[in-house]
């Protein structure tokens, strides 16, 4: 079983189960020496987590087994937008901030969602382009993506990996309401 991360708990160090250690060992063996190894390892580890993130104990184990310095792994994990160091919500709403979506009002959708989910940016540096926020109850994560490449459907929102095209505020509200009720 993957280590459960509870709000407020510090990740437990060295607590990886034998099963998880074995998973990582086999993963390393299948990618050893290949270009792009570290990216692929991190992608697969994150994908395995129910809350889609990279727990610290996994990264430490990975560093020990591959010999890649922990600092380098941390550097990679923080550099790329796809990696999360914090657990993500049960549902993910991802708003496309591509050019076509922007010209068709995706910023209003983003503002609307923040309001709907009661999310307040941790630090407002004026750049709402790259964002990932999770509600305190960990039900919802609101993210943005640079572009889904679905520009003809702009504005585009991905709700739990399903693409919705030509979205307006009302349609988005309905989606969120449905998720709220569905998971109650």
């Amino acid at each position: 079983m993957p280590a459960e991360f509870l709000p407020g708990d510090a990740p437990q160090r060295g607590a990886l189960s034998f099963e998880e250690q074995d998973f990582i060992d086999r993963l390393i063996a299948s990618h050893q020496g290949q270009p792009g190894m570290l990216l692929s390892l991190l992608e697969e580890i994150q994908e395995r987590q129910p809350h889609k993130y990279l727990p610290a104990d996994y990264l430490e184990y990975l560093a020990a087994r591959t010999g890649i310095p922990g600092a380098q792994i941390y550097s990679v994990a923080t550099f790329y937008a796809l990696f999360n160091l914090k657990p993500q919500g049960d549902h993910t709403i991802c708003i496309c901030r591509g050019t076509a979506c922007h010209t068709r009002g995706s910023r209003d959708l983003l503002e609307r969602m923040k309001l709907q989910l009661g999310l307040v940016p941790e630090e407002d540096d004026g750049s709402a382009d790259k964002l990932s926020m999770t509600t305190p109850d960990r039900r919802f994560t609101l993210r943005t993506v640079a572009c889904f490449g679905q520009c003809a459907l702009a504005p585009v929102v991905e709700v739990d990996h399903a693409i919705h095209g030509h979205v307006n505020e009302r349609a988005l509200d309905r989606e969120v309401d449905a998720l709220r009720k569905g998971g109650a």
Partner: protein
Amino acid sequence: MPRITDLSSFNEAREAGLAKLLPPTPRIAIGMGTCGTGNGAEAVLQSFSDAINQRGLSIALARTGCFGFCAAEPLVNVWLPGKPLVILQRVQPNDTAAILDDLTAGRIPAGLALCRIDEWDHITGHVKYGSGFPEIPLWNEIPFFKGQKKIVLRNCGLIDPTDIEEFLAVGGYQALYKALIDANPASIVESIKAAKLRGRGGAGFQTGSKWEFLSKAKADRKYLICNADEGDPGAYMNRNEIESDPHSLIEGMIIGGYVTGASHGIVYVRAEYPLAVHRLETAIHQAEEWGLLGDNILGRGFNFRLQLIEGAGAFVCGEETALIRSLEGKAGRPTPRPPYPADSGLFGQPTNINNVETWYNVAPIVVKGPAWFTETGSPKSPGTKVFSLVGKVVNTGLVEMPLGTPLKTFVYDVGGGTANDRAVKAVQTGGPSGGCIPQEMFDTPVDYETLAQLGSIMGSGGMVVMDEDNCMVDVARYFIEFTHSESCGKCIPCRVGLDKSLHYLNRITQGKGTEADLATLDELGRMIRDTSLCGLGQTAPNPVLTTMRHFRHEFEDHIRASRCRAGVCEDLALSPCENSCPLHMNIPRFLQLLKEDRLEDAFVSVVMDNPLPASTGRVCQHPCDDRCRRSGIDSAVNMREVHRHIADSIYPSPRFPDLVARLSALRKPSTGLRCAVVGAGPTGLACAFYLRMLGHDVMVYDSNPNAGGMLRYALPDYRLPKEVLDREVELIKLIGVDFTFNTRVPADISLNELDQRYNAVFLAIGTWKENWVYLPGTELTGVIPALPFLESVSKRETVPLGKRVIVIGGGNAAIDSARTALRLGSGVTILYRRERKDMPAIPEETEAAEAEGAKIAFLASPHRIVGSPDGRVTAIEAVKTRLGEYDSSGRRRPIPTDEIVRFNCDTVILAVGETVDIDFAKASGLKISDRGLIEVDRYSLETSRSKFYAGGDLITGASNVSGAMGLGKKAARNIDKRLTGLKRWRDLFPKFEYDQAAPAHPSDSRRHHVRELEAEDRARTFSEATVGLTSVEAMEESCRCLRCDVRTGDH
């Protein structure tokens, strides 16, 4: 699994594939790219599959990629043996039963057919589908595909991307076979060089040269990389190419490996493209099984491995050195070149990187030769390029065009222009590395060099069309925000420079910018461009530099007037409706006051914002309607009619004197300063009202015996009854504005005299001169200009009008003339040389004219007026026009044909536009623009002569009432600032306490329209043609407002 080792096993596989593409039964193939599935293709497939199974039909069902016309998705290809392939558009699951009925009966569902394909040139192969269905247009006859040449997209949307046999059937791996049999790698490198194939990732470097470097490099292991980290927002051609035709990429890379001596290939794909990843994985696996990839390819002893790596969301990894660092397990930060990857790339080995689309051009060049390739495109940029045409165009999708095609072909011909009558403003090319090209430059051919000259780049081929609802400052800010957050942070110019640029751009969009900021932004941009380490930084300032170059006035509007015309920059507007209103009425406020049943407060709010609310409530062009957010739910709030209702409820009522007193109490104490306003039209009245309210003594001069200008003398009574106008003028008189009528400037009183007597003079004499068309026959009796005609009618003078009247023109004056002539008992035909949608008149007015019996001949350009021997009009001849190229106004130019139509008539009314009386302009001694208008400072409205201001049509040319009044209001503000040296404008306006909460739920009420009298009744009388909203309806309209002015959250 069959391994292909020789020609006969190759041919066997091809035959098997062809049997799938052209089976003995009907075939249905559903477009299952991400665009298709995003539009519901999965459900369509399921529906077909269920129905075919249930009915036990013998129909082949397949999936295919995307044919590129995203706006018409889901696309479904249907084929009957011996017949052309027909592409159906916008297919929904409930269409499938009828489609199957048709196909089993040997028919094509005509209603859904988009186009047909008789045969298809796959470049490396050819498929003949069949003939028939002449009523369905050929694929390249419909506007979206016209002019497209599918080389890169040769297989997309026609074969099943997950079936290698279908790929083989259309000539797939043909080029690889040829390359390995010929066994002359150097000649292929030469071919690529001779074809002048340039890198399609954006920079446009010669691919053949890069391959030559790699082939000459000596090393144990060399790498080939396909850059599929398509990160430019607005570009998605690589996604579609891989999703729809993954094998062509693999084939191109194997050939590349063979000729450069590379044994390892890597495709670096964005993780945001899961379907592309999945399809490419499948294709790699298939190619390996079939002996086309891996060891001993085609039995020729060549080994090549291909690996797929998913990127993890970093835009900078599109830069080749950053991509290589990423593959090495590091953060994707670029490194300086040299060393170039061809010398020292991945893990220090020689490496070559090409964009996805570059690889797709390899097989066609190998099979067809470089001479064939250079036939297409421009001399320096041969071949085609795939563009993703998105944004504010009707036909969005992937467009493969020869390089060198002009931009306007993309926007208007292929894209079909904008959907909502908004004018196109610009096209953004090249994503965050590119720039915005203004509409005036749409003749620009799209190739590497020309775009670079305009400060943009071709980039990966994103083309985002923007219209007047898009703010160019916001666009610049958007891209800098993007590159700012994607900057890897390694070099200072990019990291710090973009941060500073964003800071200045944020200030400008918040209305806090200064002129100096523009200079700083320019300087910063150049510094970042010239000194950054990699392509990201070197191109990141392009969006700012090009928008500042081509749209400087928008930056200036934000800085000098705190104005965002597009209404995007929220901090500069109260609400979208307020921002669109030329008078900047606080619309949400008067709606809310009415909702709170405070009619008198609502009236004060309305009149203080717009001194002619009853007149404009009838005749305004209502730009607010187009901006109302409620139209996203059902339709816009009918704001114009609500302020008409408010005004109509007060003016003729006993409460009027109290409200005059209330307004007079708001008037500032007398300043003793004297102002003259020349022209008592709407512009002059607006200016006079505010100057008086600010405490100045105001005298209005007019050549006519009464006030109102065009409202009184050009607008017919059925649109604006004179008593309505009289009451509004009465109010303006009651607050203390004085009038001198029947006095001409400068004939009766000169500008010098005005200068001596007044502290400031505002000129607003409008455009009373009718443009004259130079046609044979205009000298005949019975040819009359529109304005004098309308003026005579409104002055109740007798007008000699024939029974059959022709009106030439398509503006409001033309429609007013037509409806007036109808009311005088004539039959009316309007001649207009363009299409209906190009008419400048208010659409409701045109519809009303038609309902009343006016005929309109579109695409008819007057040619000559025919007269009788005694010099009277007897007929007019018009040349039928057809629509040609798009002109600089974004409308299609009417081109005369040989066809001439004759209309018998006895009167011709010319309504082709009004202009400033040039004699006045010259006599004034003021500076005149090229268009014959009075020149003023855009922000202060001051003319070339001190103390003299001008506004309205006199400075803009013929426009509309509210626009002109807006300028009168603005002039009053500037005159007062100049006279008193104080900024006291805001103090003039009373404060109201009213509810500041947005409605929890939008009200259920639909939009209320005014009631029109029956056409046959109203067409015989000059009484008002519409009846305003009732109190209940006006109240319900107010409740429909969503209160965009209420700020919540972090605002």
